[in-house]
């Protein structure tokens, strides 16, 4: 299995609202990320737009439905469709989430939590081996945000991710907002989390906004519907200062999507924080 070379840059998720911006002007990003499933189709406008954008920018394909934690294994049709898209787009890399989404009968279309058990780790690693073998390339997996922990948990999430990368050769997509959300929801230390990860395996960072505690009960909810908050920016700066290699950083917005300039301003803040962090690393 080949390795994924570090790629340093700043990008945005490509959303339908911004198609015209990307097609009709030069947008100051180093890459765009798309939700794989939106383009795992046979034809039509969405695919044509993606191909046009691909001609201008490197593209990352980021999935939400691989269900890498499914005990019943992976969906062969899904893998075939993903491979077709991967061959069509030639992305920087292919990513998905450490979660599960489906059983043989139903699909939740939500990123459901896994027990952090050795049993689940075996399932995840077997599934990653199959996915990477099918695609012929290593993948990135994103740390989840979650609202439930399980009595069966045997590992910390960072120990689970470390062992997962060691056993499969996959890489990490570090979602800093997800670390913050889960740390707040489950009462663990974000510092411990970052210190416990194999940060040399990180190739990409996600930044996003969340719904604070109190708006929807006693949990912070990972909603991607507002700007990145100060605490998450701080954690990003901290994480960035701990990662020696270049990484691709992006702002993720999936709901209440603002005009593009607003997201580009947030991206500038990420550039500035990363620059400060890198200056600290080299000092």
């Amino acid at each position: 299995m080949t390795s994924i070379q570090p790629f340093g840059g700043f990008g945005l998720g490509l959303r339908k609202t911004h198609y015209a911006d990307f097609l009709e002007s030069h947008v100051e990003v180093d890459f765009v990320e798309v939700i794989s499933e939106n383009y795992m189709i046979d034809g039509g406008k969405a695919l044509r737009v993606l191909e046009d954008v691909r001609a201008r920018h490197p593209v990352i394909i980021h999935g939400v439905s691989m269900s890498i934690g499914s005990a019943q294994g992976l969906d062969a049709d899904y893998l075939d469709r993903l491979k077709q898209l991967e061959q069509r787009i030639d992305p920087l890399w292919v990513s998905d989430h450490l979660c599960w989404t489906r059983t043989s009968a139903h699909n939740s279309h939500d990123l459901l939590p896994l027990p952090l058990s050795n049993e689940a780790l075996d399932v995840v690693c077997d599934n990653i081996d199959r996915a990477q073998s099918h695609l012929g390339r290593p993948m990135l997996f994103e740390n989840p945000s979650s609202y439930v922990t399980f009595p069966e948990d045997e590992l910390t999430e960072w120990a689970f991710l470390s062992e997962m990368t060691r056993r499969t050769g996959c890489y990490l997509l570090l979602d800093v907002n997800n670390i913050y959300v889960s740390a707040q929801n489950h009462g663990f230390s974000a510092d411990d989390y970052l210190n416990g990860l194999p940060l040399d395996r990180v190739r990409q960072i996600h930044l996003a906004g969340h719904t604070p505690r109190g708006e929807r009960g006693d949990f912070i909810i990972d909603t991607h519907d507002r700007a990145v908050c100060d605490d998450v920016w701080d954690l990003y700066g901290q994480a960035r200062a701990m990662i020696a290699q270049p990484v691709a950083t992006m702002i993720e917005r999936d709901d209440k999507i603002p005009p593009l300039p607003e997201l580009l301003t947030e991206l500038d803040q990420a550039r500035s924080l990363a620059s400060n962090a890198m200056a600290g690393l080299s000092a």
Partner: protein
Amino acid sequence: MTSSQTLLHAQQAFMAQVLDDDQPVPDNWSERQAAGMDVYRQNYRSAVIDAVTSTYEQTRQWVGEEMFQRAAIHHVIAHPPSGWTIDDAGAGFAETCQQLFADDPAVAELAWLEWAMLGASRAAEATPLSMEDFGQATAQFGDEDWASMTIEFLPGVAARPLQHDLHAMWQALAAGLQQRPETTLQDTRGCIVWREAERPTFMMVEADMVLALQSALAAMPYGEICLELAGDNPDEQTLHDAAMRAGAMLGQWLQERLIVGLNA
């Protein structure tokens, strides 16, 4: 039981709890864990209902927000999605509408139209035959070639009989539904949906064209389509009229650029 079977059963139980608010959480869960499950339930419900809403925007406008939400909730409870694409959460919604809006059957036809348009919007690319291409392809055809000819259509083409005037409904919706049009058709007609360049579109046609198109889509040879149009025990004049009618339909399908190939 192997370890992955244990996880499998745990995931089946978790999914059942996500899909059904009345399913109890495990006995050994704390109140906080139960509250966490509620977040997943809400996330699931809102994601799939948003997906249904996004596919059926015109139907939503036609029946009104409150009625649509009720119908969408009923649909996702009765038919939880199983496919990997969330778009499929809207599969079968026309049948749900047929059941729930029995006193306004136009709703189910409108929902069918929107589902067919979604299918056309993401169908594979194909190059339609021009009149000239068709002329060249059939220039050497004898009677047997015509009789055995099957027609390939653009991917995503769909057709159904109609009892309601979808064209008038669509126009009224585009105008913000300031006036509700008369929707019931005096005679059954039909609707054909396809993608024109990047835009899904539809037209209303005579009922016999829908039946012929459905047969042609199912790879029925052209000669048999002519016989089908002629009905049972046709006389010579009826056969002649049916062949003329089939020829006119073929011409219209070519004109609308629905045909991508011929097999004889």
